[in-house]
C-alpha cells in the first residue's frame, strides 16, 4: 500500500477499506438488484436505500475523521494496469473537498431514494429505476474519491452513461429517448476537451496523479500556454457536465426523466461533477489567469442567459432546470474569480435547496399529474407541507438572510466584486431575476385558484398516476419526509460559514494554504439582499396583486421575450442548422456519395472485371453440396498428405 503524506500537518487516519466501501455499498446493491429485480421488484427500493444509506453513514464517518485531521490529505494508490510506458493507478484520495462531496452526494442520494419509493410506486420499471440510481451514485462517488485524472475520466463517463439511462428511463416516449441521447452527446462534446487534457497532461507531465499535476502546473516548468490549454480542456469537460453556455442545452431536456432523477442530477451528481473537476484542479486555473478569466466569463454568461430564460418558462420543472444552470454559472464565476471556497460552498448549499425544490415539484406533480403551472394554482391549502418546504427552498435559492443560499451566494458576489465589477454587476442582476422567477413560480403554483391539473389519460398504459388531479392531495410520508429533512440544511447549511469553519476545512485540500477570498462584507450582503427582496416584491406585484400584468410586460419587451422564449434559438441552430443541414445532409451525404461513386466506382471498374470472372467461375459452381464437399475434403487431404509425407508429426 502506497501511503503519501501530502500534507505534513496530519493526514486523516481513516481506513482505506472504508473509503472503498463507500463506493462498493451501492455497487453491491446495484448488482443484487440487477440480478434479482425481475423476481422481487419490491425489494429493489429497500436494497437501494440500504446500499446508499450505508455509503451515507460511512461518508459521515469519513467527514468527521477528516475534520479531526484538520482537513489533511490521505492518498491510497495501487497499480491497475500497464501498457508499455503507460502505467495507470487506481486509488482513493480523501481530503476536505472529497469529504464534503461524499456527504453531499450520499445525503441527497439517500433522501432521493427514500422519496422515490413513494414517487415511483407502481411504475413498471420500478426495479430498473433503483438499479440505475444506485449505479449513478456509485459513479459519482467514484469520481469524487479518485486520486488521479484517468480514474476520474472513467467515472466521469459512467456518470454520463447513468444519466443517459435515467433521463431515457421512460424510453417509449420519443421525447425521453431524444433527451437522453442529447444529454449524452452534448456532454461528450465537452468530454473531448477533457480527453485532450488527459492526453496532454500524460504526454507533458507523465502522470495522472492529482497532486502531481497540481505541482506540475504550478511549478513554472511547463510553458504557460500548455497549462492554459490543459485548464481549458478540463473546463470544456466541466462545461458539458455542468451545463455551461453554450453546452447547457441538454439540461432542460433532461426533465424527461422521472423527477427524483432530476433532483439527483441537479443537486448532487451530474452537474456537480463539472464544478468539482474544476475545483479539484483549482491550482491549475490559478496558474493560468487566461483560463480563469475565461471560466469566470463563461460562468457569468451562463448565469445570465439561463436566468433570463427561466423568467418566461411555464413548466415549473423547467424553471428549476434553468435556475440550476444559472446557479452553476455562479459557481463557475466564483472559480474563475479564484473564489474556490465560495464555489464549493455554493455547490454544497445549492445541493440541498435544489434537491428540495425538485422533490417539491415532484410532489406537486404527484397531485396534479402535470408540471404546467398554468394548470395549477391554489395548491397551498391542499399541500401545506409541500408548500412550506418549497417556500424555504425558494427563499434559500433567492438568497434571503439567514438561509443557506444567502451565505454562499454572498461569497460569490464578494469575490466577483473584488475581481471585476462587471462580473459582479451581472451576478447581482441574476440575483434579482432568481428571486423573481422563483416567486413567480410559487405564486402561479400555490396561490390563486386551482385550475384542475392534467386529466389522467387512462389509455396510456405507462402512466402510473393513480390519484385524481381534480382533487389534489398531499403526498405520502415517503415523499413528505425527505422534503422536511432537506429543508433543515436548506435553512442552516450556510451557517457553517461561521468562524471560517467551512473555508478552512475546504482550503486544506489545496497544496498552498493561502487564503482564497474573504467570507463576508456587509456592503455586498446588503446590496444583494435588497435586490433579492426587490425580486420577490416584483413577482408579488405582478402575479399576486396584478398591478402590472405579465402580458403587458411581455408586450413592452417583446423582442427580448421572444428570444428568451425560444431559448436564444440555440437548439434550433444546433439541431436544425448544424446537425441536420450542414452535417447530415451536407458533409456526411457528400462523403457517402464519394464512397459510393468515387471509391466504389473505381473498385467497380475492376468490379466489372470481377463480374466477368464470376460468370466464368459459375461453371464450377454447380450448386451441389457434394461437389463443394468433395473440393473441401480434397483440399484438406492434399494439405494433410503434404505435411505428413514431408515430415511425420
Amino acid at each position, binding site marked *: 500500500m502506497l501511503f503519501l503524506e501530502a500534507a505534513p500537518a496530519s493526514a486523516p487516519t481513516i481506513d482505506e477499506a472504508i473509503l472503498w466501501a463507500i463506493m462498493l455499498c451501492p455497487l453491491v446493491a446495484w448488482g443484487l438488484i440487477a440480478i434479482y429485480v425481475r423476481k422481487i421488484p419490491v425489494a429493489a427500493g429497500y436494497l437501494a436505500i440500504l446500499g446508499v444509506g450505508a455509503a451515507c453513514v460511512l461518508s459521515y464517518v469519513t467527514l468527521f475523521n477528516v475534520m479531526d485531521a484538520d482537513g489533511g490529505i490521505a492518498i491510497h494508490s495501487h497499480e491497475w*494496469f500497464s*501498457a508499455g510506458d503507460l502505467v495507470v493507478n487506481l486509488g482513493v484520495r480523501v481530503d476536505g473537498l472529497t469529504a464534503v462531496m461524499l456527504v453531499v452526494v450520499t445525503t441527497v442520494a439517500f433522501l432521493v431514494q427514500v422519496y422515490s419509493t413513494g414517487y415511483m410506486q407502481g411504475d413498471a420499471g420500478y426495479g430498473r429505476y433503483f438499479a440505475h440510481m444506485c449505479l449513478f451514485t456509485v459513479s459519482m462517488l467514484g469520481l469524487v474519491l479518485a486520486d488521479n485524472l484517468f480514474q476520474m475520466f472513467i467515472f466521469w*463517463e459512467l456518470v454520463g452513461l447513468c444519466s443517459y439511462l435515467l433521463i431515457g428511463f421512460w424510453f*417509449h416516449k420519443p421525447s425521453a429517448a*431524444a433527451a437522453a*441521447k442529447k444529454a449524452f452527446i452534448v456532454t461528450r462534446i465537452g468530454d473531448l476537451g477533457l480527453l485532450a487534457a488527459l492526453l496532454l497532461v500524460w504526454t507533458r507531465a507523465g502522470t495522472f496523479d492529482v497532486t502531481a499535476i497540481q505541482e506540475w502546473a504550478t511549478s513554472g516548468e511547463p510553458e504557460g500556454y500548455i497549462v492554459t490549454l490543459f485548464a481549458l480542456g478540463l473546463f470544456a469537460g466541466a462545461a458539458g457536465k455542468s451545463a455551461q453556455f453554450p453546452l447547457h442545452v441538454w439540461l432542460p431536456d433532461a426533465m424527461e426523466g422521472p423527477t427524483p432523477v432530476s433532483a439527483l442530477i441537479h443537486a448532487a451528481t451530474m452537474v456537480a461533477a463539472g464544478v468539482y473537476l474544476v475545483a479539484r484542479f483549482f491550482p491549475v486555473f490559478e496558474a493560468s489567469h487566461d483560463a480563469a478569466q475565461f471560466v469566470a466569463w463563461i460562468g457569468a454568461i451562463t448565469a445570465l442567459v439561463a436566468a433570463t430564460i427561466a423568467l418566461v418558462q411555464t413548466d415549473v420543472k423547467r424553471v428549476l432546470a434553468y435556475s440550476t444552470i444559472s446557479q452553476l454559472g455562479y459557481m463557475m464565476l466564483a472559480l474563475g474569480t479564484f473564489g474556490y471556497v465560495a464555489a464549493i460552498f455554493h455547490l454544497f448549499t445549492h445541493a440541498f435547496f435544489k434537491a428540495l425544490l425538485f422533490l417539491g415539484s415532484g410532489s406537486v406533480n404527484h397531485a396534479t399529474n402535470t408540471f404546467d403551472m398554468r394548470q395549477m394554482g391554489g395548491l397551498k391549502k391542499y399541500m401545506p407541507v409541500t408548500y412550506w418546504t418549497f417556500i424555504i427552498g425558494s427563499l434559500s435559492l433567492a438568497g434571503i438572510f439567514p438561509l443557506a443560499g444567502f451565505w454562499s451566494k454572498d461569497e460569490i458576489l464578494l469575490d466577483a466584486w473584488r475581481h471585476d465589477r462587471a462580473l459582479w454587476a451581472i451576478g447581482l442582476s441574476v440575483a434579482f431575476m432568481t428571486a423573481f422567477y422563483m416567486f413567480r413560480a410559487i405564486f402561479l403554483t400555490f396561490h390563486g385558484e386551482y385550475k384542475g391539473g392534467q386529466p389522467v389519460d387512462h389509455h396510456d398504459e405507462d402512466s402510473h398516476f393513480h390519484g385524481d388531479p381534480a382533487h389534489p392531495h398531499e403526498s405520502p410520508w415517503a415523499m413528505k419526509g425527505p422534503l422536511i429533512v432537506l429543508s433543515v440544511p436548506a435553512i442552516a447549511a450556510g451557517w457553517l460559514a461561521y468562524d471560517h469553519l467551512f473555508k478552512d476545512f475546504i482550503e486544506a485540500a489545496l497544496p498552498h494554504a493561502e487564503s482564497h477570498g474573504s467570507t463576508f462584507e456587509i456592503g455586498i450582503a446588503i446590496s444583494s439582499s435588497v435586490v433579492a427582496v426587490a425580486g420577490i416584491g416584483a413577482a408579488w406585484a405582478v402575479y399576486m396583486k396584478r398591478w402590472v400584468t405579465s402580458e403587458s410586460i411581455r408586450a413592452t419587451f417583446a423582442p427580448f421575450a421572444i428570444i428568451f422564449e425560444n431559448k436564444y434559438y440555440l437548439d434550433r441552430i444546433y439541431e436544425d442548422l448544424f446537425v441536420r443541414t450542414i452535417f447530415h445532409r451536407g458533409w*456526411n451525404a457528400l462523403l457517402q456519395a464519394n464512397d459510393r461513386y468515387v471509391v466504389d466506382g473505381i473498385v467497380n471498374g475492376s468490379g466489372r472485371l470481377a463480374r466477368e470472372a464470376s460468370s466464368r467461375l459459375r461453371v464450377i459452381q454447380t450448386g451441389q453440396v457434394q461437389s463443394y464437399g468433395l*473440393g*473441401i475434403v480434397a483440399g484438406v487431404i492434399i494439405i494433410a498428405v503434404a505435411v505428413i509425407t514431408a515430415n511425420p508429426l
Partner: protein
Amino acid sequence: MELSLLVFLPAAAAGVILLLPRSMEQHSRWVALGVSVAMLALSIQMFFAFDLNKDGYQYVVDKKWVEIGQFELRYILGVDGLSMPLLLLTTCLTVVSVLVSFSITLRPRAYFASLLILASSVVGVFVALDFMLFFLFWELELFPMYLLISVWGSGRKEYSAMKFVLYTIAGSAFMLIGILVLAFAGDTFDIRLLSAEGRIADPLIPLGWVFFFLFVGFAVKLPIVPLHTWLPDAHGDAPTAVSVMLAGVLLKMGGYGLIRMCVTMMPDVAQDWDVWFAAIGAISVLYGAFLTLRQTDLKRLIAYSSVSHMGLVLLGIGALGNTGLVGATYQMLAHGLVTGLMFVMVGLLYERTHTREIARLGGLARQMPLIASGMVFAGFASLGLPALAGFIGEITVFLGTFQKYEWAVLMSIFGVVLSAGYILWMLQRVVFGPVKHEWDGVTDQRHWWEHTVVIGLVALVVLLGVYPDLMTEMIEPAIDSIVLRIEA
C-alpha cells in the same frame, strides 16, 4: 503439438461432418460445437500455461516440410505474446459463431464444415511462423468465406462474396511478391529469422516497395480507407456467424500482419512510413464514423463503424512505441469481442423481425427487453464506455500516439463524439420510442445457445474492461522486443 492440434482438429472435424449421412445432418452442429469447445478449452489452457517470463515463441513446432530448389519450406508453428491473445480470440469467436448458427437448416453439413475450415485457416494464420505457410493459410481462408457468404448469405450475396474474394486476392498478389522478395533476400521463409536484425540484405527491389506490397495486402484486410468498400457489402450480405468471424478475427489478420511482418521485419522502412500510418489511421477513423452516420441498415452500420475502429489500430501501430502497439493489439481484441457481440445481437434481432432496416424497427425494448438490453450494452461498449474493453484499447492507442502525432490523435478523438452519435441514434430508432404494433408478435423467447453466447461475450467485454493486465502482461513483452528491434 498443441498448435498442430488447434490447426488441424477443426479441419479434420470438417471432414467428419461432410462424411455424415444425410439422415444425421442435424447432428453436424453438435460435432462442430464439440470441436470448437475443445479448441477453446485447449487454447485457454495454453493461455494460462504460457510462460510470461520467457522471451520469444512458445509451443514451437518446427519440422522440415518441402524443399524447392535452394529453398526449404518448413512447417513452423508457434505463439508469442502478440499471437496468443489473438489465438484465444479466434477460438472464442469460433464457439460463438457455431452457437449462433445452431438453428441453421440449409445444408448444415456443408455449412459447419466451411465454418470449421475457416477456423482452421485463421488459427493457422496466427500461429504460422513460416512465411509461405502463413500465406497458404491466408489464402485458404478465402474458400470457406466465399461459400459461406454466397450460399448462406442474403441480398446480393454472390456479388459481395466475389468482391470480397477478388479484393483479398488482389491484396494477396502484392503480398506474395513481397514475401518472395523478402525470402530471397533473407534466404529463408522462417519468420523468426527474417525478423532478426541484419538478416535481410540486398533485396531484388528496394525495401520500400516490399514494405508497400506487404502493406497493401494487410491493409485490404484491416481495412483502411479507401480499400474498405468490400467490408460493408460482405457484412451486409453474410450470415450472422460469418459476420462475427469476419469482424471479430479476419480483420485482425491485417493488423497482426502489419505488426508481425511489416514493422518487425523492416523497422527502418516502418519509421519512414509511420506518419502515413497515423494519417491513414486518423482518416479511417473519421471517414468510417461519418459514413456510419449515414447508414440505414444495421449490419452495414456496424461494418462502417468497424472501419472507424480499425483505423485506431493503424494509428496505434503508427506510433511505433510500446504503448501504441500494445494499444493497437488491445484494440483488436476489444473490437473482436464488442463487434462480435454487436453482430450477434443484430442477428438475434433479424431472426425475429426479418429486417435490418433501421427505419422499420423501433420500440423493441418493450417486446424484447433482453435483446434490447444486449443492444444497449453492445452499443455502449462500441462507443468506448470506460470499464468495458473498447475503452482500454482506445485510450491506450491515444496515449501511446499523442506524443508523436498530436494532430492525428486530435483528429481521431472526434471519432469519440461521432461514435456516440451513431450508436445512440441507432439505439433511439431501433430499441426505444413508441411500440410498433407491427412487431407485436415478436418476443425474447430464446434458446439456451443464444443465452450462452450473449452472457459469455458480455462477461468477456467487462473482464477486459476492468482487468486489462490479463492481456497486457502477455502482450507487453512481445511488443517490447519489437520496439527494441525498431530502436536498434
